[in-house]
């Protein structure tokens, strides 16, 4: 998959709603394009995105070829406690990529 850029505030107040942004490098090949030799380029997309907060799933998404290349997702979550927010992207072949971010909640 490649690089990922995550934006999670390093600090937040307990109960505060924080915005999280996640961007990952991936061509999101739709399977509908033809390559230079005229044959269809096979589909290869990230189909699932999961965000867990200290192990509990707080947000997830099912993605389809209509999601733009280098998928970008922004969503919110409540800052409940300090810990680790984990991001997982899973592609058509079941290959995954994991990124984490730490948050301090006071």
């Amino acid at each position, binding site marked *: 998959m490649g690089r990922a850029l995550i934006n999670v505030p390093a600090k937040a107040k307990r109960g505060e709603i924080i915005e999280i942004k996640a961007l990952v490098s991936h061509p999101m090949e739709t399977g509908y394009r033809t390559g230079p030799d005229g044959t269809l380029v096979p589909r290869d997309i990230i189909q699932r995105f999961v965000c867990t907060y200290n192990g509990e*799933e707080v*947000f997830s*998404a099912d993605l*389809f*070829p*209509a*999601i733009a290349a280098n998928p*970008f997702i922004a*969503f*919110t979550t409540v800052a409940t406690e300090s810990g680790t927010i984990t991001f997982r992207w899973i592609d058509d072949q079941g290959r995954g990529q994991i990124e984490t971010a730490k948050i301090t909640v006071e």
Partner: protein
Amino acid sequence: MARLDGMRANRRDVLAAGAGALSLLLTRPARATPESMAVAIRSFVGEATVQKGRVALDIPALVENGNSVPLKVTVESAMTSDDFVKTIAIFNERNPQPNVANFHLTPRSGRAEVSTRIRLGDSQTIVAIAQLSDGTFWSDQAELVVTLPACVES
């Protein structure tokens, strides 16, 4: 479909395989239509009625480039454990496939608000449907014109 797994293919199998291959050559990738979008929406909401409202689909009316169109969906909801948005599903009517994405939220989401960037193959209508924890469905839609920048890759 013909079996090609070590068993001797009989004449009927070979003819069927040939016809299948020929039909593949003749058909092009299916394109979504307003009807197939309706089918996809039906499979998401089942028998329930989809009501207009509570959902705000924020997407530019005039799209600079269909390869990457920013989209934001917000749903009016307290987002408590008794009353929250479970899923926000986005549909389109003219891309090859009617689904765009399904976002699954939880009471821990705080707000029902999601942003992403999508691809649009043509000017069309986009529909966002929110499934609430009480089993109701709400929606918003937007009609977009997709243009192309000048001087594109040949």
